[in-house]
């Protein structure tokens, strides 16, 4: 137990270092881009521009700006938006992350839930129509990019089934209703669900032929117990391994999905801030993404030893 806590501590430090490193690179690269956020503003006098630059400390030498910025990051302060005056970036991104996390959580639920069910069914009914149906669905699902599924979802639920959905998940302005979640979550989770299904099927086929599953049958255990407790439990180990990259995939996938569905999350901010040249927010978004990916991988690594006692930190 102490070993585990120590391990988690080490990992957290590493994640912090990685995050600062990633955002430093983004910071330095963005400052190499010519122009700035204020060039679009109309009727701008050189004096007014200089005043704006001064207000945000953008007239300082780069190294000074960098030091200021790193100090801010270490205090959890990512600065102010360049476009929307007085808007603090950290609380803004925290709010947007919670929106993204909600959608991401349900997408993950789709991915793991649907993936496991399809994979297990296909493995248990290997070489029957159930297997063929589940396997080909998985191949199709994996081959279609999520934005195609998203547009398809819009067409079906927003147009063909308008009378049923009333367009709630898209047309009503604002965010925060439960019915807004399923369609984007499905679009986001489906390609990865196919991936999980294929992996689960292969992994399950392997475990149901192992000696210890034969032992479980020989003990006279009920079929359900053999499949769930003995076969599935072991089959899950490789599935959990890919959960880390999977979560990363869902996070990056959200950039596309959130823009299609107009979800006010981190993914939408990612695009909006770049288009608005709101560099402070761009850096902030990257910082959040880096930390999120790190934390997601850490979570997976913490689940791992719970599932497989042979792994200890």
């Amino acid at each position, binding site marked *: 137990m102490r070993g585990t806590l120590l391990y988690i501590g080490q990992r957290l430090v590493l994640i912090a270092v990685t995050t600062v490193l990633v955002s430093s690179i983004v910071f330095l690269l963005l400052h190499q881009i010519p122009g700035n956020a204020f060039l679009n503003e109309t009727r701008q006098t050189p004096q007014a521009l200089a005043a704006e630059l001064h207000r945000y400390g953008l007239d300082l030498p780069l190294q000074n700006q960098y030091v200021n910025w790193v100090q801010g990051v270490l205090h959890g302060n990512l600065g102010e938006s360049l476009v929307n005056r007085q808007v603090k970036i950290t609380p803004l991104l925290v709010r947007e992350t919670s929106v993204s996390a909600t959608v991401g959580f349900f997408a993950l639920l789709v991915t793991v839930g649907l993936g496991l069910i399809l994979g297990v069914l296909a493995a248990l009914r290997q070489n029957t129509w159930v297997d063929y149906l589940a396997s080909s669905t998985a191949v199709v699902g994996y081959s279609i990019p999520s934005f195609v599924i998203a547009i398809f979802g819009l067409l079906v639920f927003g147009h063909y089934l308008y009378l049923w959905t009333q367009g709630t998940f898209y047309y009503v302005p604002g965010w925060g209703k439960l019915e807004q979640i399923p369609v984007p979550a499905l679009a986001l989770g489906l390609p990865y669900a196919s991936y999980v299904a294929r992996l689960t099927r292969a992994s399950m086929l392997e475990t149901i032929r192992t*000696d*210890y599953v*034969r032992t479980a049958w*020989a*003990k*006279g255990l009920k*079929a359900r*117990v053999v499949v769930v407790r003995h076969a599935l439990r072991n089959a899950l*180990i490789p599935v959990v391994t890919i959960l880390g990259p999977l979560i990363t995939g869902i996070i990056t996938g959200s950039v596309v999905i959130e823009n299609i569905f107009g979800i006010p999350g981190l993914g939408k901010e990612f695009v909006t801030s770049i288009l608005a040249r709101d560099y402070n927010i761009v850096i902030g978004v990257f910082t959040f993404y880096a930390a999120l990916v790190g934390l997601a991988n850490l979570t997976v690594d913490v689940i791992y030893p719970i599932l497989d006692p042979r792994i200890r930190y």
Partner: protein
Amino acid sequence: MNAVDGVSFEVDRGEIVGIVGESGSGKTMTALSLLRLIPEPGKITSGRILYGEKDVAQMTDEEIREFRGNEIAMIFQDPMTSLNPVLRIGFQVEEAMIAHQRFTNKQAKERVVPMLQRVRIPAAKDRVRDYPHQFSGGMRQRAMIAMGVSNEPSLLIADEPTTALDVTVQASIIELIRDLSRELRAAVILITHNMALVASLCNRVIVMYAGRVVEEGPTRAIFKNPQHPYTWSLLRSMPRVDEKEKERLISIKGLPPDLGKMPPGCKFHPRCKFRVDRCFTEEPPLAEVDPGQQARCWVLMKNIPDPEAQAKT
């Protein structure tokens, strides 16, 4: 294709029967079919497996489940892979007891440690919470045996229980199986290719070749007067401490036949030194050669004047 064909034998209460034969001769398949555990896509196409009055081959899935581990328990060859790596040893034993309503959950929990002590696992109290990877090979096999005898079955099938173990551990495992079977008054089917083990432990021997019983009888008779050329060669292929003259060992040339390319006539004739014309075309029946001893051969070793000389040609 028939991996096992026309095998017929009986085991009485308290008896220890050895099944011997080369790898691929159908020993394991015979044993697995007793519990209907033949791996897919194999199946029992015909025949009966009588346990008392009940025919295992005709049981429903629920009946066979209730039967496995309860009436007939099986110990497998490789204890390294036959225990579930993610479940505690104690739990795996407990689970076997709970499966058959012989014991309540509470009773089963209380019986785990005594069970492990009974199979002579040292410090059983501390080790119930261990996982299989914390056990040595011999200890795992003991745990497998504990699992097998936990429901006091009347037949114990041990499929090469010592093949995967250190020589030093083998003897103690065999001793354990013998002692437990006496205490429980259970019959044992011991599958092995170790003739010395058979000689020291078994009341009766069944010799299998190419999925058939080629000879069967009391251990003494088989070892003293083997009638089938295969049994005879098998015994002559092993060094003996009590041999008076220093005879050269006899080897059986060639390999057992491929399932897909079974020779016509006697399945052993391509490798047999004593074959006659009839062996090429007609398969001999399993016929009584002495009271209680049966052999599947047209020639029989007792009709050959000097087998040693003939075998060396």
